[in-house]
Structures are given as C-alpha cells and as structure tokens.
C-alpha cells in the first residue's frame, strides 16, 4: 500500500508554502520522526517529519517549488507490502478522472454491477499523510446501512445514499428503506419517459465523489475556533447537492453562452392569453417561464445535438424534450422533469410545472420524476437577477439560466428605445456541445421567444 505525503499546514492560516529543501530522495527508507523536508512560509521555515514508516516512492514536488498548496501531495510513501503503484503524474490523474466518469454512464456492453458504497477519502483535519487508497472506513461519504437495508434498497431501486438513517448513530435500517419505498412506488424509473435508459443499462450509482490525485480541500473548521460558529448538520439533500454539483463542475467542461431576447411580443401575448382564462375551475395564469419551457422544447427538437448525454462510447441524442425545472425548496433545490415537453401546450406545461413544484415542496416526488432528462431551466428572474450561470445537471449536457425580464434601453435603427429584455445564459458541456452548436440552438430559441407565434410554424 502506498500513501501520499501531503503538504503540511504549519499554522492554521497557512494556505501554501515553499518546499525549501528535500532531506530525502526517491528510494530512501524513512521511519516516523525522520525529517523529510524543510517547508518555508512567509512567517518561518520549519522541518517536516514523517509520521509513517516506509520508502519514498516518488517525489512529486521538486525542491525549491513555491506556492505549494496545503494538502497537495508532495511525495509518495510506499509502505510494506506495497503493490499498487502510486499516481505518478498528470496522466494518472486523468486516468482517475476517466475512471470516475465511466461507471457513471456505463457503456452499453457493460452489465451494471452492484457498486461498492462510494468510498472517498475525506480531508483529515490535521494529518499530513493521507491514505491514498481510502482505506479508512470512517470517511464522511461512507453510507452506514444494515446489510438487509442495502439488499432491500438495491432490489427496490432506491439510492441508499439519499436516505436518512433512524438506527443507532444514524445507521440506515430496513424500516428506513421500506418507508422510502412506500414513497416511491415506481420502481423501474422512467423507462418509457427517457428512451436513453432502454439502450444503456441504467447506471447503478454515481461515481466516487473524490478522485485520487486531485487535491482535497482543507476542512474549514481548521480556520475557526469552535464556538465562533454554529455547525448546521448537512441533511441528505444538502449532501446530494454537494456531491452531484461538485462532480458536475469538476468533471464536466462547462462553457457559457449569453443572449438577450426582446420579450415585448411574448409579454403582450401572455397578457392576452391570461385574459382569456376562465374564472374559478380551469383558471390559469401562464408565466414567462412556461413560454421559455415551450420554446426550449421546440428548439431542442430542432437541435437534438443539444438535447444529448455524454458517454464514453457514444453521445445519446434524446428523442423527446424532457426538461428539468429548478424548484427552490429553501433550503435546497430539486429539478423535476416535464416529460415530452415538445408535445405539450403552454397550458399543460403551466399546470404540470405548478403540480411538480407543489409536490417537490411537499417532498412527494418519485425518483423517476427528477432523475435523467436532457435539459434544464433555472429561472432567477423573480429575484431581479439579470444574468447568471448555472451548473449542468448530469446526465444532461446543458442548462439555461433565465434572468429577469426588464425594461432596458436598447439601440434600434440608430435610436435608443425602451424594450423589455430578458437575458438567457446557457451552460454547455463542451464534450457534447461545441460553441457554434450551442450558439445555433440559442439563435433558434431566441426566435421562438421573441416571436412566440413562430412556434406554430
């Protein structure tokens, strides 16, 4: 087994330092207490001692290197019985990233195996040496669950990592899984709704959240005295958000495209349609977002290369526009799906999104209603946000961030005039969507939004 020797924090505020001098070279045998290196900070130079016994396998940071971040691996220590070679350079890091992505979107030939619970090495609060292969079972990502609970969860298609445990020390027990199963009667999720699921065996689990070779972030508690903060424990939704979005932002190469849309015509059409609403039963009130969903669905059908998901072997072009709508749960959020939005009218979309949002707030969504999809829309316009960028929600490849529709001064035919303008920013996965591909999609979308009647064409 090998462990990585990490850049030590010589003081609680230290963020980086200079590796002033190595006292060992590759192949040297060291024991606990041996001086490995001299570390220099802006305040002092200190000796860094080994706390383990072993042989220096590889020095990763050369002598004299400045700006070495705390907890960055600086060398590999091979312990007795070592067989697995330590990550050597950037190529092994890339391999790790690849490995992490592959199981998340299993290749068609792959039979989805029963995954190990994600085991990720957490950041040790003060340790200088971290076990490279995550042998420590008490990592924060380990799911504590009884064997029976695991078995029932697997058979019911329930992600045990998202459950709250009611057993001793939060252990997930049978009754927790059974309660979750009752809440999600639909066991084989969305086979009809997401065609991609039929071609590709359903991925059994998410990829491990942390990759070996990537520097872990320091534990924030290092920087603050206990008592000077309130620790609000992370609930399972917060953990899921953290895990999924950290993976998404780390593993998906995002880029962003911004476009302004004049929504004058849309606003007046909306007003006219809303005036036609019945009173009492059957009453409706279309929102700008309903138009954006409809327009996106239409645009996605024209640009299936945006309505797509990445796998190593192939890009999956979805046949329907299943669009996730970000719902604020305050705290937390979830993106339930409007399935086959291209087949639905504004009213149906409006009613469906209302129902999804209500059920999301009541935590009554079934897993198939928020897993998968080809595209997402996040709207912060109601908060007066003019423009923002959103994180892609895997397995999707793009998400549209919708800003507020507001009166702005625009130049038309050389004159400054007032117009109602809404700014859209699409985040794209560059593996799937090239810049011009994304731009063409936004062009189509802009036409649908600026001239809603064109959706009838």
């Amino acid at each position, binding site marked *: 087994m090998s462990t990585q020797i990490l850049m030590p924090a010589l003081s609680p505020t230290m963020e980086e330092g200079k590796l002033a001098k190595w006292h060992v070279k590759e192949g040297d045998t060291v024991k606990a207490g041996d001086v490995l290196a001299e570390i220099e900070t802006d305040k002092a130079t200190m000796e860094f001692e080994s706390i383990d016994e072993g042989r220096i396998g590889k020095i990763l940071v050369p002598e004299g290197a400045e700006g070495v971040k705390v907890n960055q691996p600086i060398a590999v220590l091979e312990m007795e019985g070592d067989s697995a070679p330590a990550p050597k350079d950037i190529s092994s890091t890339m391999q790790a990233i690849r490995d992490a992505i592959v199981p998340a979107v299993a290749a068609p030939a792959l039979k989805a195996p029963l995954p190990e619970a994600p085991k990720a090495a957490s950041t040790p609060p003060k340790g200088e040496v971290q076990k490279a292969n995550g042998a420590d079972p008490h990592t924060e990502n380990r799911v504590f669950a*009884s*064997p*029976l*609970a695991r*078995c*029932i969860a697997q*058979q019911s298609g329930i992600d045990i990592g998202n459950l709250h445990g*009611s*057993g*001793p020390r939060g252990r997930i*027990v*049978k009754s927790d899984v059974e309660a979750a199963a009752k809440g999600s009667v639909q066991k084989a999720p969305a086979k009809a709704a997401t065609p991609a699921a039929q071609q590709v065996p359903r991925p059994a689990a998410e990829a491990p959240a942390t990759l070996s070779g990537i520097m872990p972030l320091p534990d924030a508690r290092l920087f603050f005295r206990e008592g000077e903060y309130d620790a609000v424990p992370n609930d399972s939704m917060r953990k899921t958000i953290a895990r999924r979005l950290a993976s998404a932002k780390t593993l998906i190469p995002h880029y962003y495209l911004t476009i302004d849309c004049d929504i004058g015509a849309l606003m007046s059409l909306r007003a006219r349609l809303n005036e036609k609403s019945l009173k009492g039963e059957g009453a409706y009130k279309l929102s700008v977002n309903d138009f954006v969903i409809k327009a996106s669905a239409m645009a996605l059908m024209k640009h299936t290369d945006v309505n797509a998901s990445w796998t190593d072997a192939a890009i999956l072009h979805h046949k329907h526009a299943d669009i996730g709508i970000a719902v604020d749960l305050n705290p937390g959020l979830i993106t339930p799906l409007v399935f086959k939005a291209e087949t639905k009218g504004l009213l149906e979309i409006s009613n469906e999104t209302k129902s999804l949002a209500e059920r999301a707030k009541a935590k009554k969504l079934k897993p198939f209603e928020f897993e998968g999809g080809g595209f997402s829309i996040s709207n912060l316009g109601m908060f007066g946000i003019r423009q923002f960028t959103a994180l892609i929600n895997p397995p999707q490849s793009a998400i549209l961030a919708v800003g507020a529709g507001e009166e702005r001064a625009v130049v038309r035919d050389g004159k400054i005039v007032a117009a109602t303008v809404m700014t859209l920013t699409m985040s794209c996965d560059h593996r799937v969507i090239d810049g011009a591909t994304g731009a063409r999609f936004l062009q189509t979308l802009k036409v649908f939004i600026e001239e809603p009647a064109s959706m009838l064409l």
Partner: protein
Amino acid sequence: MAESFDVIVVGGGPGGYVCAIRCGQLGLKTAVVERENLGGICLNWGCIPTKALLRSSEIWHLMHRLDEFGFSADNIKFDLTKIVERSRKVAAQLSNGVKGLMKKHKVAVIDGEAKLKGKGTISVVKNGQTTEYSAKNIVLATGARAREFRGLEADGNLIWTYRHAMVPKEFPKSLLVVGSGAIGIEFASFYRTLGADVTVVEVLDRVLPVEDAEISAAAQKAFQKQGMVIKTATTVEKLQKGASNVTATLKAKDGKVETITVDRVVLAVGIVGNVENIGLEQAGIKVEKTHVVVNQWCETGVPGVYAIGDLTGPPWLAHKAMHEGVIVAERIGGVKGVHPLDTSKIPGCTYCWPQVASVGMTEAKARETGRKIKVGKFPFIGNGKAIALGEVEGFIKTVFDADTGELLGAHMIGAEVTELIQGYGIARTLEGTDADLQTVIFPHPTLSEMMHEAVLAADGRPLHI
C-alpha cells in the same frame, strides 16, 4: 406537602426496577413502589427460582447417566427441602442485589401498595397508613398473575399455581399440569425428571403452542419418551378434591371423557394483568382483557402515565418488560433516537429438558405472509460438541426471506439452546442477512456451529450432514 419525583415506578419487578435504574442513570429523581419484594415475580417467584429448581433436576438426570460418563454411585437420593431452600436462597440473593442497585442509582424505594390519585399523584398504603407522592411521570409496572377459572381455583394445598409448585413441602407422586405453555412445561419437566408421574393437558392441538410446529412436535416426542403423558386438544372439566388427592375430569375434543386421580394439580393456563386497585378506572386508563392498553411508546393515553411489562399484555416475558422500561425511561429522559419495541425481535426461552428457544416468525407464520421463504435445519447429532456432551437430541431451524435474505425466524430445541438464541437475536437486530451469517466464523467445537450449519442448510449447503 407531598414529596415529589420526576418519575415514580409502581412495581419493582424486572420492568419496574430496570426502568428505575435507567431513569437514575439519566439523572431523573426516581422512586419505585413495591408491595412485596424487589425483583417482582420474575426474580422471586418466576424465572430465577425455577431455573434453580431445574438445575437441580438436571443434575439428578445426569446422576442417572453416571455410568455413561465413567462414574458409579449407589443410593442416589434427593432432598426436596434442600432443593427448594437453594432456590429460595438464589432468589433472596438476587432480590438483595436489586436493593443494592436501587441505592447505587439513587432510586428511592417506597414500601407499600400504590394507587393513582388524580393528576401526577399517587398514594401509597403501608400498614394502614397512607402517604401521598407527586411525580411528573408515573410508570405502571404492576405485572401479572396466574389465571384461574371458576371451579378450578388453586388452594395452595392440592391445587397449585406456579407459586405453590415452586415450594413443595412434599414431593407429589403424581401431578397433573394444566396448560403446556412455558410455565406449565417447565414444572412438568422438573417434576417428571425427579420421578413424578406427570400428565400434561393442553387445550390446543400441540404443546408449546406459540413455538414452531416442528419444535412442538419434537418437544412432545421427547417429553413422551421421558414418560410424560401428554393430552392435547383436551380440557379439564372438573377438579374433585379428595383428602390427599384430586380427581380430574378431562374432556377431549372428540368428546371422550376420562378421569384421572393425581396427588397435585398445577394450573398454568395463562396470565391476567394486575389491573385491580391501582386507580386505573378513576384515572381513565383503558383496560382490555385484564391488560392496560398502551401505544407503541407504552403511553396509556393519560398524559404522564405509562404502563410496561406483563401489565400491558403478551408476550409475558421479563426481558420484554425490561426493554419497555428502558424505552419509557429514555423517552422521559429526552434521549434521542429511541425506537419502539419490535416484538419480532423478542426471543422466547423455555427451560424444559430439552430446552426450547426461538425468535421471530415460525415457518407457518412466515408462509402466511406470502413471501418466498427458505428454511434450514441442522440436528444436534451432526455436531461434535453435542456428541461430546452426550446431548444429541434436538435441532436448529432457520427461516429466511428467500429474496432479501432477512432472517425471519429461528427455532431451536436441545441442550443449552436458551444460551444460543441470542446469536440470531443479534443478527436480526443488526439486520444481518443469510449472506452475512454464512461468513461468520463460529468457534469449533461449540454447539453454536449448528447455528451456522442451519444457515448454510437454508441454501442446501450444510457442511456436516
């Protein structure tokens, strides 16, 4: 001004005194009211003294197998007075121990009979004197007693309950045991082993009717081999007392009537809760079939009044009462993460010879639930330690959910199985599956290896048979 407590526990049996200890540990000002002896029936007139008696009968049984083990002795006798004396001493020692435990956990012990008196108040009567106490929480743990039928009342002389059967002055040559539950069968076993002619009458169609049918059948066969007369599907119509014996009229389900005459009768036909004279009606606490009605948290519906143990109904087991006592104490003490009692995890033990122990569902019950099950069995005769001990009678049976591998139930009959059942209890509580139990390393040579084999057998892969 009445002395006030955080918790007053009414009844110092296993449920009550354990509840009081846990309350004390949680820093609650606690008192326990007991009218007789700390430790209750279990410790003074139940579980513990009967185990002392059965130990004596076990030794007697072994002394009759001396030759098999390479010993010889003549003129083997037993002294009933000494056997009973030892049993009483064991009970007294433990009751004293409970007194010490109360002191250690700063639990006040109040002698007398308690009665609920309005909101948060109880009165305790001792020698005609009444004292009132107030408490934020009151835990009723008054226990239960033997059920008697009209015309079949115990007199303590010729017709006994467990209480009389435990302190016989002379040894009956013949005995009729009415009821073949744990209590009846343990006394039947004790008296039969020491040489009495024992007849057991059971209204249902098998002995130990709560156990798995196969266990009942094996037990019945073993008892009959020992010379017990077992009459199932039979009721006692009449008990006619003579000068020194009793003539019983027995009626079988098929209508056949017979009479037998025996020296003594032991009534073991069930249990009724001690619900009388503790002020339940006035307090508005609901009683059904002589037991206090409670919810999953042992709450009676009257705020601040809880009931635990035998008083609240079956299974009438000391360890059930103790567990409920802890649950109530922890709820009062604000401990987080307390779970209600899961009755499917309560093991049951009968200390007859051979012993019987079980936890969870019987095979029949598991089948009734409609799930796919698999059953494993392993006999004592296939176990090295059992053969070395000279105890080859019995078997162990496991019932698993075939889909999830959940251990639904385990059933055992044979030597020392009451000490083994906890292993399956732990597995059930930790929610281990068949796959987990298969990988457990059981020490060799032990009787516990049969537990492993019974798990493997459920998959058709036992190693030693």
